[in-house]
């Protein structure tokens, strides 16, 4: 039993390094990927930037998003719910004279179910975004307002022993500022 047990590494610090441009941050992450900070991998890295950098996945590895699944299931739910909602409403028309016309009218219901599909798809996409992007959460940790202007931040949680090698890597790539906070 104890043979398969992993050593638990307690991360004690969260570090934010601010860089003046994306290329420097990219190279710093590339060095982390080359294990220049022992025990730290790119899976521990979070990049914070004023714009989207899809090319960061070249070094961070491909990271997925569940948003399209939310869109798909939301749209499907809207389509099915929309149709059956209308059909159930139309079923009450049984008590009303229809003049020989069908009670549940497929063509008009298709139009309305189509609209419901899109509406629910969009709403589900928004929910997927909020959950997937971990929005509306408190205590997300280190942040600097310069990130919303023109600087790139790299956030990593490390142990005390990893702190100095990490700072050395940051310094190699002309880090502008380093902020750290203790993890409780």
């Amino acid at each position, binding site marked *: 039993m104890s043979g398969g047990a992993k050593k638990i590494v307690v991360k004690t610090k969260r570090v934010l390094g601010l860089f*003046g441009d994306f*290329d420097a941050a990219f190279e710093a992450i590339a060095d982390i990927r080359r294990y220049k900070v022992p025990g730290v991998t790119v899976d521990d890295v979070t990049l*914070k*930037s004023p714009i989207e950098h899809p090319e960061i996945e070249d070094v961070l590895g491909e*990271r997925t*998003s569940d948003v399209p699944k939310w869109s798909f299931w939301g749209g499907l739910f809207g389509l099915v719910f929309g149709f059956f909602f209308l059909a159930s*409403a139309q079923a009450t028309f049984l008590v009303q004279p229809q003049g020989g016309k069908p009670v549940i009218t497929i063509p008009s219901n298709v139009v*309305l179910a189509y609209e419901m599909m899109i509406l629910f798809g969009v709403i589900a996409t928004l929910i997927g975004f909020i959950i997937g992007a971990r929005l509306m959460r408190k205590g*997300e940790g280190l942040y600097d307002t310069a990130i919303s202007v*023109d600087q790139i931040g790299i956030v990593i949680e490390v142990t005390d022993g990893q702190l100095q090698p990490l700072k050395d890597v940051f310094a190699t790539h002309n880090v502008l500022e380093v902020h750290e906070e203790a993890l409780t």
Partner: protein
Amino acid sequence: MSDQKHLSQEQAKDIDENIAWAKINKDVLRSMENPRKGYWVALFISICLFCVMIYAEVYQYIVGMGPALLNTSHMWDLYISTFVFWIGMSHSGTLLSAILHLVHADWRKPIYRFAEAMTTFSLMTAGLFPVIHLGRVWNFYWVMPYMSDRGLWPNFRSPLIWDAFAITAYLTSSVLFLYIGMVPDLAICRDSATGWRKKLYTFLSLGWRGDDRQWRNFRFTYLMIACFLIPLAVSVHSIVSMDFAMAIMPGWHVTTFPPYFVAGALYSGCAAIITLFILLRYFFKFEEYMTMPILDKVCKLTFVIAMVWTYLNLIEFSAVWYGHDIPSKEVLIAKATGPYSPFFWGMMLCGSVLPFALLSKFVRRNMYVMFFVSIFLNVGMFLERWMIVTPTLSLGYHPQGFNVMWPGWVEWAMVGGSFGWFGMLFLIFVKVFPCVSMYEVKEMVFHRKRVIYEDVDEMMELHSGVPGPKAEPQSTGGA
């Protein structure tokens, strides 16, 4: 000579890619604090027009529908024409933004935000008119699909109910599309604001920190909603056209109405984008972001859509003419020669002839001329909607219903007031929220700069073996 060539290339740029990121933030945030006086004048005029609308509505509420001069055959007239006009106006913003996003046309980035806001507020304006034209405005909720204690539901076979569904879906989706696209910018506003603005932006930015997880999910979200919105926008105006096309009234029962309405919607929306582009550029000193080359592209797009609209118009006329349905033909002839003919020909002049002015580079690059051209294009589109609704109601199948109806002052006040309502909402929006997308302009600048360096790099290595500028450390533009 080479200097001139260089200068013309500089002028042809959609944006200066050397603009610093901090400056982009500063310029846009400044616009929300300190607009030109023209902004306040426009807001004052809008509020005055809106007050006229309120007065007219209260008057109509008290007196009844008589002052609007609506009667048995003319039950829709200017109210529903205006409704169709505003629905059409709403189309270009979201639809073009979504399409241009999918095809990676990055010149949309400085202008899409206000175009999407235009969509939202146009829909909110359009939504007023079906309610106003009811007369008994307090019963508007009857159109909603709720279960009443009488077991009655709306008639789901009616295109008017389809309208309610489609517009509700479109308004909700457009608002969410506008909002989601704005979240990173709201975080920028949060980081630099104080007071009530700080609280507002902190709440609305949802805790955005710009990390790679958030950007990745953001990219997918924006893409998915754009994919949803394109068919939705097309369906909305198709459904609005079915309010007419599903009826058997002469002049309305036309199979080309859905694409005709969609083209008309895009057309009027594009013209409105030009108008608002020029106004915002002036109000907020956005000369560096809302540039002449971008205006040039919007003008060319407007011309193309104008030609599509003209073609569909001619198709409709010829289908009626060769169809030999006598009542429909009579309506068509009456449009061209009857009491409404000045407005019909005004529509043709503004909608089909005036767009040829956009072929002139002088016109496209002249702000003053383009401002008036864009206004007249939309006058043409307003007349188009009026000429769809009213001549048909004047000449139905029943001779006893033949009459000519001119809108009363209440109707005109409502129409004028709707521009005030729209203008007021729009101008308040652009004062409170950034009307130029800061992060997308930064992306535009960043990627364009990269492309330039990569091209130079390749060419230098190819021809001389000398490493290009990319070999040296480059700034992203901001630091």
